[in-house]
């Protein structure tokens, strides 16, 4: 699973600690999500997308999905 958390966080000028505080998890969890090592639960994904005011689909996507879109093009 790929995500745009790091990009969105930079756009909003927030630190990992701030994002962690806002969604109620540890900074380590945010680091792991950003690096793609950990896929969050649907609840956490929802909280993150709400924080940046976008839909879950705009924040997270399956890597195979991107590959198939690339092949189609």
């Amino acid at each position, binding site marked *: 699973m790929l995500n745009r958390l790091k990009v969105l966080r930079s756009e909003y000028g927030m630190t990992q600690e701030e994002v962690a*505080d806002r969604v*109620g998890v540890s*900074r*380590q969890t945010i680091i792991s999500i950003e690096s793609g090592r950990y896929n969050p639960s649907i609840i956490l994904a929802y909280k993150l997308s709400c924080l940046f005011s976008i839909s879950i689909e705009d924040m997270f996507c399956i890597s195979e999905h991107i590959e198939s879109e690339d092949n189609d093009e």
Partner: protein
Amino acid sequence: MNKPEANRLERLAKLVYTLTLLGMLVYGVTWRALQARQKGMGALQALESAIHLDVYVVMTLAAVALGMFLCLSFLRRFSETPTTSPPVEKGRTRWRRLRVPAIVIAVLYAFESAWRLAKHASTGSWHSEDWLYLAGAALLAVVAIGLWMWEPSPEELHDMGSEHPSRVNDERTQRVQEKASLTTLRLFLLFLMFVGIPYEAIVYGRWPVITMALVVILGIIQQSTRSYWNRRL
């Protein structure tokens, strides 16, 4: 507890625990090997005899040590200073009520172990299982001291008593703990099944009934809990 303090505590606890366990293992094997040597066995035969006698003890202590290492590795994360307040007060664990029974159980077990070990040591009937009692007592002593001296943060107490984990014990930490516990159990079972049991059966021509029963019981518990959670979730 701040971070540098937690790091120091983690390092110290790891060092003490490792040295204690290593000391116990080395002493146990050496003691048995020397006893075998006194009975006229060759050096290799004596060592092999010592390792065989203590194989389950060594294995269990190794599992305890691994579990403790994993717990200590999580200590840093648990002791992270929270910057947000718990979301709700409802369900918060009352620390004193949790601490007192836990300490009473630990002290009772320590007394029982001390009585048993003193009796065996004084009558010269020291069994290999006594090492397990000693390891268990040491573990409980550490837990009792920890419970007495360090009260968790309000967030941790909230986590213990409610189903709304906050940032101290969040979903990733829980996932990591689940995976670590499962890996420890799997390694323990694999060692029992593919090393401990065949070794005793092939080399000594007898089946370790208690160990085999333990494996079966663990399998039954695993399947029962699996079907239980399958219905619940």
